[in-house]
């Protein structure tokens, strides 16, 4: 029920909806830098700002799939660069497991990705978002783990 829907227009082509969790200090800053550098990338990834990738509860990821996200990205500072010293090391451990668990559940691994993107890696942010959007476009809408509407 996108608000800009115009009933007179034909149904729009399906576009993937990707929820991204981005740490405030690195990935969110990297995304801002991509903007400052006027890099272009598809609009499908929308970022939820969290203080640290370590704040991203795996349950948020499940919730996103449940509510209809086609893919989820968790991104933060490179290990060693965490603003909070160690948060992303825990993220790394937790999501190494979570990624495998989701795959075990039958979710295509491309639908859940974790990436380290620093505040200076605007090109990497652009590339990750672009590549992920393309991959999910090819995969089509996610039906798995999704609640019945």
């Amino acid at each position, binding site marked *: *029920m*996108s*608000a*800009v829907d115009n009933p007179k227009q034909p149904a729009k082509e399906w576009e993937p*909806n990707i*929820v991204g969790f981005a740490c*405030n200090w690195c990935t*969110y*800053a990297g*995304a*801002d*830098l*991509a*903007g*400052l550098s*006027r*890099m*272009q*990338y*598809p*609009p499908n990834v*929308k*970022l*939820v*700002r*969290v*203080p*640290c990738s*370590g*704040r*991203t*509860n*795996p349950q*948020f990821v499940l*919730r*996103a799939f449940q*509510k*209809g*996200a086609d893919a989820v990205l968790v991104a933060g500072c490179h290990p*060693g*660069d965490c*603003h*909070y*010293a*160690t*948060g992303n090391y*825990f993220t790394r451990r*937790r999501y190494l497991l979570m990624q495998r668990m989701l795959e075990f559940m039958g979710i295509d691994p491309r639908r859940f990705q974790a990436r380290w993107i620093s505040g200076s890696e605007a090109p990497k942010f*652009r590339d990750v978002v672009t590549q992920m959007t393309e991959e999910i476009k090819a995969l089509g809408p996610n039906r798995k783990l999704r609640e019945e509407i």
Partner: protein
Amino acid sequence: MKRIGVFVCHCGSNIANTVHCEKVAQVAKDFPGVVLSTDYKYMCSEPGQVMIQEAIREHNLDGYVVAACSPRMHEPTFRKCAARAGMNPYMVEQVNIREQCSWVHANKEKGTEKSIDLLRMGVAKVVKNEPLYSTTIPVTKRSLVIGGGIAGIQAALDIANAGYPVTLLDREHTIGGRMAQVDKTFPTLDCSACILTPKMVEAAQHPNIELMTYAEVEAVDGFVGNFDVTIRKKARYVDFDQCTGCGACTEKCPKKVPSEFEMELGMRKAIYTPFPQAVPNKPIIDAKHCRYLLDGKCGICKKVCPTGAVDYEQKDELIVERFGAIVVATGFEQFDISAYEEYGAGKIPDVITGLHLERLMNASGPTAGKIKRPSDGKVPEKIVFVKCVGSRDEAKGRPYCSKACCMYVAKHATLLKEKMPNSKSYIFYMDVRTPGKNYEEFYARTQNEYDAQYIRGRVSKIFQVGDKLIVRGEDSLLGRPVEIEADLVVLAAGMDPRGDAKDLARTLGISYDQHGWFTEAHPKLQPVETHTAGIYLAGACQGPKDIPDSVAQASAAAVKAAGLLSKPELTSEAMTALCDEAICSGCGLCQSICPYKSIEIKSINERYHGQMRQRRVSNVNQGLCQGCGACTVACPSGAMNLKGFTNDQILAEVDALCQR
């Protein structure tokens, strides 16, 4: 339901060009809780802020969302704006439709659509915002300076002169650091000791400075304003209260050891002071070499000591002290040249480093200032300098420029010519970098007046034939290989981070780069701060530096530290973790994950079925917590939450993004 306002910013044409701002504001009117939605050209401008403040009063808003640039840019602005209108500043959310929308998407329809999605997310979150308040914490008005080189001494003096007590800690048994080893300083050629030793003495005698040498930091707890630092005071085996520094012990000690201070060009004793002007000027026993401590034989020093100060039973001592601020000034190590096998480095005795030459030139050094080569004591005539050894060399893992070598080589060439007019220096360089006051002029004089031959090219091989050293390079300006038969080769070894710098960084909770240099909070705008509040950097521990730069940075760090200590109290982070004691089962999973050690388990008493009982729960120290939220994820029951980024808020954001 809370009453929410929505303000969509055009940012001139920055946003409006690729987002239909009016349309976005229009659509937002239908979002749950929104009682007012409007757009404006520049929300951050004075009229924009006035408009928001009027709306807050007029519509009795509980909170608002501004869709504009990145919150990393203007969140403080809009929070203050709310506060001026009497609204709690944490009732504001900012949605990023510029950096992460209008600037990165060309299609206006898609940009508009994404803006609406992001705004829906912001509204869903702000509905669940609660007013937040900072608390205050007291500041311990003392500072710790780690490292007693020129940077540490300068920082300590500046903080002490600002009126705050300082503990100046050095792992070695004297302060002075690298500069004490240097003979003369560029570009003025004043004697290093002449300008350094007065400062060392001043630091030792300053009423606000406590000197703690032969000591190392073991652990750091606490946070800005109140660091609890565990310090290991290493056993010196000499009671400094009794020792008069008469030197009888050193004189009689039978054990000779290569002197670290003299770059192993000279010897010292097992009970020793590293150099005559050491501060404190009292000897310690080197336990690794002392005959008595190794196998119980000897004991001469104890016998000759007139005051009975020698104490073989002394043990390391651990103390814990509290400091409000910490300045890190641990300096550098000279690059280990033995990685350059092609130069015979570490194998050929007459292939030496800059620091070796400093000691050979120094009047109180092992040769009393006569330049004699280490192998046979011969006075060299042809001296070759090779620059960028362990600098600008990716293959050796050192891509960075060590910054001081160009100048110290010019200084060496000048001094050698002064000392030995018949000598000739040949200097292989790639570039000559002289960006400092009077540096270029000095370099010019080295060539014009002191006859140094500069050859552009990196040396490829150095080997020994008879008592000559053959140095092969390319004169890249000629485009021809060249060869020099030298008597002495000085490798301008670059600067390395301290071998254990990474360990100290982890202890302090500060970050470091891939080489081990400590990382400043911002390369331009926060060059002496670290990412950890209350910890500052001075000198070469942050990256290669010469003396003037180190001293300047030390004073800057001192100002930062003194500024912190001058505050009556500190405002703590408002967005901190909070434990719901009703749910918490006290399992402690959150505790091990907290990087700030801000979670403690406490016992609470509660009434249960008419009886009082005790129960363990987690308790977050609001002064220490920095709001990373790692604990919230470790908590399976959801008892731990992060104010400003609660589970509820994030779930609402996720739901809003997925609801399309």
